[in-house]
């Protein structure tokens, strides 16, 4: 909470009144401030307003109260999307965290060619979800993909048709998303592991703790902040997932693999249901805020107490 005026007396040659240097920070920050206020908060409010109107193809400002939200939650397609998000989100987060932690620990054992392996694990994070979706669509396609590969290898009864099975298709999303993001979680944890105080570990070893115990009792607990960051980032990726569905399943079969983001896009832009589309966007925002606000609060408070 310190200000930017370092001088206490009037030693400097500057006059005590207006000084360009004092104003510069504010002037420089102004464009971003305007952008943030208009394009983030202004638009958010705009969308919120639209969600309480009867807007269809064009925005209208005839208010209808909570009607759009009622319609939304009576809409089967939205409920499917929301359920899918629940399944997809929780599996995606859990598997990524588990894989990420395990791979980070494995890689932390003085592995030869660690750099190469790390590069391989992380490269999916550099490519687009659209590419990921395209690739996995090919792999999971029962006529040409993994199913055919296994059948040709002699496993005649092998069946792996999740991509065209409405009850299983959401797990295809999980597979592709885990493939893309788990290496990233590994990198987060590996960086965390490398940051753990070496003396602490030496001390534990001197006390006779095994490597396993050291990880479980000392190292992993100290990575709590990394764990929470990863959790928040993954939840965030899950809630915003749009491209992957678009490329891998296009929401299908039917709308069995829709996620809220796809619902929102379809209803707002192709189905001329701006009111309901806005309502769905607001629900998505609510989901993110529910995760984010406590996290940011603890982060910022933590930083303040550090000073």
């Amino acid at each position: 909470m310190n200000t930017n005026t370092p001088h206490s007396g009037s030693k400097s040659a500057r006059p005590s009144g207006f000084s360009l240097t004092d104003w510069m920070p504010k002037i420089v920050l102004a464009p971003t401030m305007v952008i943030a206020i208009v394009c983030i908060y202004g638009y958010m409010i705009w969308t919120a307003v639209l969600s309480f109107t009867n807007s269809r193809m064009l925005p209208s400002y005839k208010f209808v109260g909570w009607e759009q939200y009622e319609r939304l939650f009576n809409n089967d397609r939205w409920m499917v999307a929301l359920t899918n998000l629940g399944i997809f989100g929780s599996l995606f987060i859990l598997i990524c965290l588990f894989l990420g932690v395990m791979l980070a620990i494995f890689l932390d054992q003085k592995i030869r060619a660690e750099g190469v392996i790390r590069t391989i694990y992380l490269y999916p994070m550099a490519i687009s979800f659209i590419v990921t979706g395209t690739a996995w669509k090919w792999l999971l396609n029962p006529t040409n993909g993994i199913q055919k590969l296994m059948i040709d290898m002699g496993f005649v009864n092998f069946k792996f048709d999740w991509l065209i099975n409405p009850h299983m298709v959401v797990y295809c999303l999980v597979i592709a998303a885990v493939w893309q993001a788990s290496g990233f979680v590994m990198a987060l944890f590996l960086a965390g592991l490398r940051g753990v105080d070496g003396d602490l570990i030496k001390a534990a070893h001197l006390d006779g703790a095994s490597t396993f115990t050291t990880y479980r009792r000392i190292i992993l607990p100290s990575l709590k902040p990394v764990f929470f960051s990863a959790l928040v980032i993954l939840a965030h990726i899950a809630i915003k997932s749009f491209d992957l569905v678009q490329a891998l399943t296009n929401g299908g079969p039917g709308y069995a693999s829709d996620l809220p983001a796809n619902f929102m896009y379809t209803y707002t832009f192709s189905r001329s249901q701006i009111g309901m589309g806005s309502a769905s966007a607001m629900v998505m925002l609510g989901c993110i805020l529910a995760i984010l606000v406590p996290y940011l609060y603890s982060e910022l408070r933590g930083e303040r107490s550090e000073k």
Partner: protein
Amino acid sequence: MKNNVVGRKTSGVDKALRIALYATLILVAGFYLMPLVVMLITSMKDAEEVRNGTLLSLPSYIHFDSWEKAWSSACTGSSCHGISPYFMNSFKIVIPAVAISTILGAINGYVISLWRFRGSNLFFAALLLGCFIPFQVVLLPMARTLGWLGIASSTTGLVFVHVVYGVAFTTLFFRNFYQSIPGELIKAARLDGAGFFTIFYRIILPVSTPIIVVTVIWQFTQIWNDFLFGVAFSGFESQPVTVALNNLVNTSFGGKEYNVDMAAAVIAALPTLIVYVFAGKYFVRGLTAGAVKG
């Protein structure tokens, strides 16, 4: 590095464990590599081999026909010029958007960490929230604004959108990096008569190379890979490559040419993959430096 097993005798059990460890790591590497390998193999087969072979069967000889087709003559939606025009669009969007958002982020980060004023922390918190909002809540108002500004369905419009929603991230990156620069340095420079921009240019910028590289790579990857803004705000002429790829893969009727799809996917992924391979260190640093904190 630190938590190793140095100083202990390696027994047979340890050796077996290490072999198992390496086996696991290599198996997992196979899982990560498989889609890329399959994409490459498939893209080099001809139609006949795609139909009759399996995922992992190798092409009899290497064809680049489908690469050529994907690049210059495959149909994406209604036009049949391959993905090359859209690939170029992506560059037209990415280069200015990365440059502008990085410069803005550097200056913002400089102010927020070294020139604090009343309310600057609050502003930072507000901006931070902007990093994480689901963009669905801004899509429709932004579409209206772009129309109103006369830059709807153009690459300029997409540059604008990417700068607007990228600047929160770039600011976060630079702010976290500059946070470690002691405030006394700035105070001393000011007492010596240096102004706001002189300090930035002479003292701050020379030490910023790593974070600039990290930010540029991060933004490049994010914007190149973007699909949501691309599909919502572009016209037929201004589609980025991700949108064109999706059209190619999902809207072609009749004979499905998987080899062309795969070639197009690899082409669309190439720029970010190349950046990753050559500057992976910075990519990882961006992920960890930015993400762990934010």
